[in-house]
């Protein structure tokens, strides 16, 4: 259908529309008009992606000079591919309606592992291996060497692309990862570099967060993207953690040992080169003196050596003299390593700020701040000069140099924690230096500053006001949309007590309590008897799950559960879990029914959807608080309190509740879907927890469904399931939660729609 969104003609590739989609597009349009940022929460399964795409593409067509590019960031590879497929659908609809071939170029970008077509390289299993192998075939100096020695191996796809691929831009169309590969195979061009080259002139790019948020990658990939872009972060409920992760470094003794070996290799190589080709080192020195480093850095294939700090922090001056010669630099690194080793030889926990660290290093080994800041840059230059093929071997020393650059660049927002041993095993020495970022706004700041509109959206962003605070930006629209429902297809229940009236909670003091574990077991057992097909249960942590499963096994609860359903359990091993997941789905598919025991914050809870019969009930055992004893977390909480005036408890509860909401939201993936959401902890009944759930869940959490016993839960669930099992047709939805164009245009409907968006 064709919609009129405040004067903008929007093509929407379906016959009907959900009211909230319309409302969402309205808000989005206003955000784009204002050229500002937005925070929009809308439940999953209400067609967020297609609404976003429809509106932004329409906007792009209407105002081609205002918005030149859409950068759509998602989290996982399947998500990325899903977005591209939805886009393809939209584009097909466009060409069908308008009758003309649209000239929009849209493509997905992913790592080499997902795009490589080289027969040998692509058969490698891990992304890092693929990257390393690719680098050893395509690095600029390797290709230079090949001029003198043609027998060296090469990647014909890259050579072809380099020779031909850049002359003609990629023809307009929608390219998913597989389409790019197919295109690359046909042309004999490297799809990865083709994609990286094409994003510069593409209208729509879909890729993962890291390409924009991780400075090490963003600098290379996304540097030249136009300012007049709209950036969308989908599934953005965890965006602060992505930001923090990309700026944090951990150094162990093993890292140091490997760096030591790296340094020695460097030294030997330098000696060797000095004998054979001293001119090369002199040339490098000359370059560094003149500060020409940037001039030929822009070699696209040298991805490994990029600066860990944000672009605006990189110094535009020449490398300081003390580390300019190769030997001096190696000596400098040695000294730095020795210092770090000494710091790791401690017996008590040390926590200090970056300036303290710098002061200490200056006093102890006379290392200045300035050369430290150039470490990453200097190492990059050296590795290139020495023509080292397998960069993957040098990851340790790269890490150390990145740390050096980071610690000397940022004086605020970071903390250094040195722990001599793990908390659980105080007898085993395993010193770790955590250099951790506490302020997610540091990594995302350039994005907000550079692009005119940044949209942060997800199914679970409540409470909405916290994201602008922790990411430190000023949005023009903040809205939460509910799910209009013709039938209440979600049923949140808070189970607070067992049938014996013992409170159910994962609170630290009582979590090992026999009665609590037994009641949790009984809950699972009862639910396994009444819920059809699949049940997913989440625990607060992996260790907690292990303990509970073991005691359930001893008590014979699992045996009884097995009479009703098969049991699959998440393990720390991703491959094993994938298999368990597949088998779980198979068991749901063939009617046996199964239970998946899983962990909040785990990979399953973040990336896997349990649509329809794959998840008829989700049980959340306990409140998934983070491990609060961690020093890094404590430091971060302190920082949040001091900088953003967010109280520790507020943040912890917010964090726990967003993960709980993520977990239970996995089961509802649309209006035709239905599922039980069982919160098995009495603490969920409290207002401070309940109030932090997304609005679309909170709405259905009545007072009657709080603090239930197991029996009451079973009764309510039975009733709900029986109701939901009735046939549900399109007519039932029409006019309520599903609108035709005529219905949409009616006056009172527009009024109703205005209420859907809840402005925070």
């Amino acid at each position, binding site marked *: 259908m064709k919609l009129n969104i405040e004067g903008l003609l929007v093509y929407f590739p379906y*016959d*009907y529309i*959900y009211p909230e989609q319309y409302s969402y597009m309205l808000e989005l349009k206003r955000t784009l008009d204002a050229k500002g940022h937005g925070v929009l929460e809308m439940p999953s399964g209400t067609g967020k992606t*297609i609404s976003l795409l429809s509106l932004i593409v329409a906007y792009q067509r209407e105002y081609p000079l205002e918005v030149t590019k859409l950068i759509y960031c998602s989290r996982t*590879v399947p998500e*990325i*591919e*899903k977005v591209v497929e939805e886009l393809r659908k939209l584009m097909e609809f466009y060409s069908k309606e308008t009758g003309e071939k649209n000239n929009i170029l849209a493509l997905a970008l992913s790592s080499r592992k997902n795009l490589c077509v080289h*027969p040998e390289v*692509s*058969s490698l299993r891990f*992304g890092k291996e693929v990257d390393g192998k690719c680098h050893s075939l395509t690095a600029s100096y390797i290709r230079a060497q090949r001029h003198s020695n043609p027998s060296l191996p090469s990647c014909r796809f890259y050579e072809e692309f380099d020779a031909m691929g850049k002359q003609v831009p990629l023809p307009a169309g929608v390219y998913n990862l*597989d389409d790019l590969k197919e295109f690359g*195979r046909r042309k004999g061009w490297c799809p990865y570099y083709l994609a990286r080259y094409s994003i510069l002139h593409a209208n729509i790019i879909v*890729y*993962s967060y890291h390409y924009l948020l*991780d400075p090490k990658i963003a600098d290379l990939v996304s540097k030249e993207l136009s300012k007049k872009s709209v950036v969308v972060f989908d599934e953005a409920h965890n965006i602060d953690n992505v930001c923090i*992760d990309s700026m*944090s*470094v951990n150094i162990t003794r093993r890292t140091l040992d490997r760096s030591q070996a790296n340094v020695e290799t460097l030294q030997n190589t330098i000696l060797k080169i000095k004998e054979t080709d001293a001119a090369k080192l002199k040339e490098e020195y000359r370059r560094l003196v003149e500060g020409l480093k940037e001039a030929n850095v822009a070699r696209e294939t040298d991805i490994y050596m990029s600066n860990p700090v944000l672009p605006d922090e990189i110094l535009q001056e020449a490398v300081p003299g003390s580390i300019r010669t190769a030997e001096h630099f190696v000596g400098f690194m040695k000294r730095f390593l020795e210092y770090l080793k000494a710091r790791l030889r401690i017996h008590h926990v040390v926590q200090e700020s970056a300036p303290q660290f710098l002061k200490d290093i200056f006093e102890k080994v006379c290392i200045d701040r300035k050369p430290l800041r150039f470490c990453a840059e200097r190492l990059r230059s050296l590795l290139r000069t020495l023509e080292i093929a397998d960069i993957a071997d040098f990851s*340790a020393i790269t*890490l150390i140099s990145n740390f050096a650059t980071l610690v000397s660049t940022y004086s605020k927002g970071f903390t250094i924690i040195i722990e001599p041993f*793990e908390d*659980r*095993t105080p007898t*085993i020495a*395993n010193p*770790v230096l955590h250099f951790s*970022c506490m302020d997610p706004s540091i990594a995302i700041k350039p994005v907000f500053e550079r692009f005119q509109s940044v949209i942060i959206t997800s199914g679970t962003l409540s409470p909405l006001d916290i994201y602008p605070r922790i990411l430190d930006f000023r949005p023009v629209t903040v809205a939460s949309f509910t799910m209009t429902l013709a039938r209440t297809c979600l049923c949140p229940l808070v189970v607070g007590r067992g049938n014996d009236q013992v409170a159910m909670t994962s609170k630290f003091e009582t979590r090992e309590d026999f009665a609590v574990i037994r009641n949790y077991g009984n809950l699972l057992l009862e639910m396994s008897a009444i819920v059809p097909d699949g049940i997913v249960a989440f625990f607060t942590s992996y260790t907690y799950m*292990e303990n509970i*499963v073991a005691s359930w096994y001893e008590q014979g609860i*699992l045996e009884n559960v*097995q*009479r009703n*359903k098969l*049991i*699959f*359990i998440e*393990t720390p*091993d*991703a*491959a*094993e879990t*994938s298999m*368990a997941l597949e*088998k779980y*789905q198979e068991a749901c*598919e*063939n009617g*046996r029914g199964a239970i998946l025991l899983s962990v909040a914050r785990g*990979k399953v809870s973040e*990336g*896997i*959807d349990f649509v329809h019969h794959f998840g008829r009930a989700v049980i959340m055992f306990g409140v998934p608080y983070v*491990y609060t004893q*961690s*020093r890094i977390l404590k430091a971060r909480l302190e920082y949040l309190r001091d900088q953003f005036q967010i109280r520790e408890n507020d943040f912890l509860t917010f964090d726990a509740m967003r993960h709980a909401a993520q977990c239970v939201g996995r089961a509802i993936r649309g209006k*035709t879907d239905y599922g039980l959401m069982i919160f098995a902890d009495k603490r969920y009944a409290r207002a401070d927890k309940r109030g932090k759930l997304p609005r679309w869940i909170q709405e259905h959490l009545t007072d009657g469904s709080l603090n239930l016993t197991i029996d009451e839960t079973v009764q309510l669930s039975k009733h709900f399931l029986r109701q939901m099992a009735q046939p549900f047709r*399109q007519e039932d939805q029409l006019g309520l939660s*599903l609108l035709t164009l005529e219905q949409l245009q009616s006056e009172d409907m527009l009024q109703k729609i205005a209420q859907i968006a809840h402005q925070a």
Partner: protein
Amino acid sequence: MAALSEEVLLVVKRVRQRKQDGTLYLMAERIAWGPEGKDRFTVSHLYADIRCQKISPDGKAKIQLQLVLHTGESTNLHFSNESTALKDRDAAKDLLQQLLPKFKKRANKELEEKNRMLQEDPVLFQLYKDLVVCQVISAEEFWANRLSINNVDHSLSNNKQEVGISAAFLADIRPQTDGCNGLRYNLTSDIIESIFRTYPAVKQKYGENVPHNMTEKEFWTRFFQSHYFHRDRINTGLQDIFSECAKQDEKGLKSMVFQGVKNPMVDLLSLEDKSLDEGYGSNSTAPSTSNTNKTVKENSNSAIIKRFNHHSTMVLAAGSGKKASSLVVFTAEPCANLAVCLHRDAPNGQACETSSTDGNSRDSDFFQPPIKKVKIQDVIEYEDLHRENGKKTVALNLKKSDRWCGCSWTPYFGTSVMSSSTASCAIAALSPGGVLMQALAQQAINQMVPNDVQGELKHLYTAAGELLRHFWSCFPVNTLFLEEKVVKMRSNLERFQMTKLRPFQEKVQRQYLSTNLTGHLEDMFQMAYNKFHAWQTRRMMRKT
């Protein structure tokens, strides 16, 4: 003596019954007892009639065996040969123990079968009520020619469908303490079957060791003692024969994990686009790489978890056979034709691979995209946002369509065919309201007669039809049995007419005046009577 022609399995002398000495015979199909000196049996029971046997406790003076029949009656046998009484009794008991289950199953099966048929088929059930419950014909007659037909196809379908395995079959082996420091495990053949199907390694061990190395009992004892059975124990000793099984399981699990998953949407390994390099990130709970600092308890916990996954996987695999994985593909309806062609390609993947110009080594590459596409399409589809346009049909995909429409094909009927206009005239005349259909008066029967009467009439028709079928199946009457039957059937028919048809007719007459609902039924009966009469007169004539 009739018994002589039967196979006698066991003869026990000096068995007393009702204070009379005699001999006990166990035959292939029955057990019999005859008093001494007489050559006929006073007691004879088919095994199928026996519900169970009971024996007297060991310490008792009288050594007895009691047979309890399904009817509730019982027969006591007293083994009175002093020296060998116990041995005799045990021999008889053991033999009975082997024989009874065989017959029991058969008897039960028949009953179950009948029950099932009645439940599944409401028409049959009604018929049963009309004829058997009202004692028009006997139950045996009713079942006589039904069961045989059904038995055949049922047994056929029985072969096809395998029974799944309960996930909790290990839990069903409830160990019971026997009071003196021991455990008793109850093992049935079903459970053994389940164990074998779920854990092929155990079956293999069984085949290797039983009966050459150990008895069956010993084997299972060891099984239950082994660490293998107790999933939380990890250190499997070397002397344990099942340690190898555990290793084999481990290997199987590993290879399954290594193969990876077919559905890209659940592949957690390829979920992340770009994982952080080692050393970056802030996750404080970095997994400790060394296993050394894990406690024994933690290790055993993770062993339990692994075992659960393995167990469930094996149960699932045993239940669904190997087809399961390819079946999943077909659930994606919107692209059914795509999935179908994928499925067809799968077995001859080689051809597919060699045809590709570019030797991509990842052979999975060629199959993955279609599955992936289907899955993704499936996920992004909002079915309720589309206007419903009937059932989605799979388009017919003809490879060489010119072959189908290119050549000119004209039908040839010969000459004796009437023209199309004549044909349509005839159809019009024969349709309701047409020239030829006007004479029929009951056009409105379904409007004039209330539903309950209609239903009753329907029952009458089926019942009468069944009786008549029995009746007519007797002709030609060439055996004595059929002769008897035909006479009986005639009286059955008469009885039916009296007890069922008449009251119905009266009822109809009371309510409605004109319509003769039962005319056709009566005609049918009359036809049967005529036939019977003709047959009887001919027989009388032949006799005289």
